[in-house]
């Protein structure tokens, strides 16, 4: 668990503890060094989260683990958005682990629907292995106004619909991301997090 001061770390930690999966909440690079899987949580505004991550002293270790050692990483919500090149929401550059941009919901498509996109929505996986293995009729809790838009269609792991289809989850090799909050999506979320641990 990357603890850079943003995101509901406890929720993830509790879930993994109850699944009897050892979890380390890492605040230093040293604590992260032997990670077999990494969860990068996130909530709030892009620049705010990115700035905190930059200041955490964990970026180098993260790049090393994710890009060179290919440790599977799961970014959640803004955690996933940070993995893109950049976001319309902010000025700072992202991690660049995913070939994607983060854009606002298209006002033309959204019309009168409220923003942020808040609540439980159905998710349609494009692949039934990996994160969504064995999960029937998945639905998850979303809370966001911006979406990730991968340049390669193959990187889209799941979609959801709000005014139009948008990317709900991504996967490129060892890099995974969900726009929704599995740590706050009851059994569907617990199953997904378990699947991630099993990858």
């Amino acid at each position, binding site marked *: 668990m990357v603890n850079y*001061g943003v995101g*509901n770390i*406890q*929720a993830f930690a*509790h*879930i993994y503890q109850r699944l009897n999966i050892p979890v380390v909440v890492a605040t230093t690079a040293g604590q992260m060094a032997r990670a077999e899987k990494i969860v990068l949580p996130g*909530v*709030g*505004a892009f620049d*705010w989260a990115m700035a905190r991550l930059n200041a955490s002293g964990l970026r180098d270790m993260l790049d090393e683990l994710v890009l060179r050692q290919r440790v599977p990483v799961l970014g959640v919500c803004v955690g996933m958005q940070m993995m893109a090149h950049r976001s319309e929401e902010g000025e700072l550059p992202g991690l660049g682990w995913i070939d994607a941009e983060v854009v606002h919901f298209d006002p033309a498509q959204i019309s*009168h*629907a*409220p*923003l*942020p*996109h*808040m*609540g*439980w*929505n*159905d998710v*349609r996986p494009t692949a039934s292995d990996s994160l969504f293995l064995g999960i029937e*009729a998945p*639905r998850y*809790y*979303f*809370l*966001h*106004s911006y979406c990730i838009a991968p340049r390669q269609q193959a990187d889209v792991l799941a979609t959801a*619909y*709000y005014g139009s289809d948008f990317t709900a989850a991504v996967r490129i090799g060892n890099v995974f991301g969900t726009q929704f*909050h599995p*740590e*706050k*999506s*009851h*059994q569907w*979320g*617990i199953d997904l997090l378990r699947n991630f641990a099993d990858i």
Partner: protein
Amino acid sequence: MLRPRIIPCLLIHKGGLFKTVQFGAPKYVGDPLNAVRIFNEKEVDELMVLDIDASRLGRAPNETLVAQLAAECRMPLCYGGGVKTVEQFERLIALGVEKVAVSSAAVDEPELITRAAERVGSQSVVVVIDVKTTGLLHQAEVMTVNATKRSGLEPVAFARKMQDLGAGEIVLNSVDRDGQLQGYDLNLVERVRQAVSVPLTALGGAGSLDDIRGLVQRYPIIGAAAGSLFVFKGIYRAVLINYPGRTERDALARPVETRAVSS
């Protein structure tokens, strides 16, 4: 498609759960931790917990309790009561709360909304507007400090102002309808809905699942919050937590899109 959110709303008073009628006559409902745990097992959409003493007594949020409640929630938790500073926002989010609600502070210090939104993001800033009909002309007015103080503000304009300042969700709480189990104030909901584009949640008055159905069929994307409905049972107001199951919940909302989708 996005579903309407059906939200139990729990009130904390003197450390215990209580339920009020028109913001008065509190009835003891039990231990917050067990209630939250039961709601979690019932897989509720989200949960709202409001400390109704904090504003009145000038108290800060009870962090131990909040942490314990957050630990039990596998769904989003919104916590409110006594929040006055951005630091408190941050602290509560760090304790595991998804959204922080403010009511009196939004009236007393509207800039708090903007500063909080900058820090934790709009999506975590909820403004609860307590509305009561007051005065000779029976106008709707925004109330503060547990509906004891009149603000002189008109709810629709206030809601719009809150949205402009950065609130990510507006909770419309009808003081008159609180605990009456007679239905939501749909008139108020309509007027505010016309004025704001952030997510809206109605609270106060829901007496049966029909009331919720009525609300969510008229507004497919909305939050339907209730206190008494999910905590009391029957004419003797027996305290028994209840909440519609998944199938029942899905049946309450009507499908918005007509495309043939496989979900």
